[in-house]
Structures are given as C-alpha cells and as structure tokens.
C-alpha cells in the first residue's frame, strides 16, 4: 500500500506540472502513455520531485521511471 502522504505530494506535483486531472493520476498511470508527458516534462518532474522530497534521483534511475507508482515507490525506498 502506497504511503498516502507521498502519493498526495506526488499527485500535486504531477497535476501542477502536466496540467492533468487529479483523477487521472493513478499509480498505474504511465507518464508518457496516459498523462501525455514528453521526455522533457519527465526531466522537469524529476527535478521538482528532487526538490520536494530533498533527494537526488540519478539519471539512470530517472530513466526507469514510467508510471506514477514507480515514482512513489522510488521515493518511499530512498527518502531520508
């Protein structure tokens, strides 16, 4: 079960950044397929997540991020 707080904060950033409906930001939603994000959007998203959660996401890890759930589990596994 995803951490509610992390999910809420991630959702807010995704909604702000991509201009999508909050209802569409589900754990299984793919940034590229479902949320219409291009690769530059994802780079920006990663930067904002780094700021919000005060962590550094390596380029290698960032490339693996495909869905909202990927982001949430990454943050849960790496937050200090």
């Amino acid at each position, binding site marked *: 079960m995803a951490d509610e707080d992390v999910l809420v904060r991630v959702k807010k950033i995704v909604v702000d950044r991509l201009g999508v409906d909050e209802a569409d930001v589900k754990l299984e939603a793919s940034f590229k397929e479902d949320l219409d994000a291009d690769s*530059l959007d994802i*780079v*920006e998203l990663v*930067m904002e997540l780094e700021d919000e959660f005060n962590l550094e996401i390596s380029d290698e890890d960032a490339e693996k991020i495909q869905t909202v759930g990927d982001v949430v589990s990454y943050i849960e596994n790496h937050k200090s």
Partner: protein
Amino acid sequence: MGLQNKVALVTGASRGIGHAIAIKLAKQGASIIVNYSGNKVRAEETASEIRSVGAEAFVWQCDISDESAVQEMIKQSIDHFGHLDIVVNNAGITRDGLLMRMKETDWDAVLNTNLKGVFLVTKAALRPMMRQKQGRIVNVASVVGILGNPGQANYVAAKAGVIGLTKATAREVASRGITVNAVAPGFIVTEMTDQLPEDVKSKMQSEIPLGKLGTPEDVAGVVLFLASDESKYMTGQTLSVDGGMAMQ
C-alpha cells in the same frame, strides 16, 4: 539592453573574447561568474574590472571538460548568486597542425574543451534555467566552423559541432523559454589568433570584406544582443561576426 539583476557565467573569461564579453555584460548590470582554467591572475584582473564598473564578480577556476568540476561550478554559482540567467560558452583552445600530422592527443584536447566542454556546461546550467523557465545560452563558435580552415581540423570540427549542438539544444529547450544561439567570430585580434602562422593570417585578412581584423569588443556586442531580451524571438541561430567572411 539592460541586464540588471541578471547573472551570467562566462567561460574562459580571463582573456581575449571572453574577457571582453564579461566586461560588456557587466557594464549592462549583470553579475558575472568569471570562469578560467589556468590564468588566475588575469581572471582576478577581469573580476576587478567588472567590479570597477559597479557589477559583481565571482571567480571560479574549472576545467570545463571535467563533468564533476563543471557541476560544482554551477552549484557554487547558484549558491553565490541565487540564480543563473545567462551562460556564454566561450572557453576554447587551439592545437593547430595539418591533419596528417595531428596527434590524437591534440585532437582530443581541442574536442574535449571546445565541444564537450560546451555540452557539459550547458547540461549543468539547464537545470536551474528549466526551474526558472527562462535562460539565455550563447555559444562562441567560429567562422572556421562554417568555412573550414587548413591546419585546424580539430578546431574546425569542434566549432562546427558547436553550431550543431546549438541547434539541437535550442530545439530541446525552446518550449521552456530558454534560447540557445551562437556567434561565429571571424579573425579577431587576440592572443589565440596571434599564434597563427603568418601566411594563414595574411590569407585570412585578404578574405575579409570589411578589410580589417575584428576586436573582442565587436564580438562582445553581438553576444550582449543574444544575451538580452532584444533577441528573445531568436533561437538556434549562429550570427557571424567576421567582417563579412562567411555570408549566408
């Protein structure tokens, strides 16, 4: 073309064209990060000149072909000034020689500084610029990157590469309010061009329609234009500042 409250990083700012660019931007009110590689004394002199026109200067030594050093420079710059608005990728070196005699180390040295260095500085600077949703990147290419030049295969390849890199970067970040343009200086009086062989110099000079060599200030004026809001509807362009050598 006021640059009040803007922060500009100028690589290779201790001497030549970079020095003139740093002073030109400072005179418009920009705070300047004076990057240099080897000449600390000259870099400090540039900083003193910047301060004497009432602008702020922050001197930072860094080999731009070293990614971690470049990232540290950008981090320190942001820590110092709080933001980064303009990057002028000016630093460059020459290792001239005929291609058939050119050492691999001379090829690598020039490509590493003149092309990879631009990539690394741009990559690091784009992070804060994307956050700010604005930025100006100005790359210093060269007329020889357009026309070619015997004895400078490495330099020509790097500078032609910079022109291509300028276009690719411009397309990638245009949607984020960041413009990326280049200047292509012609034959400019600097310590670097002083080193060219006499026959190359006289031949180049005879090919300048305006009939004389350019000055670092001639280049700096166009860089200022590309760094300012006056050029906000331009991106991916290379402006020749060469007395008419390469007309498009």
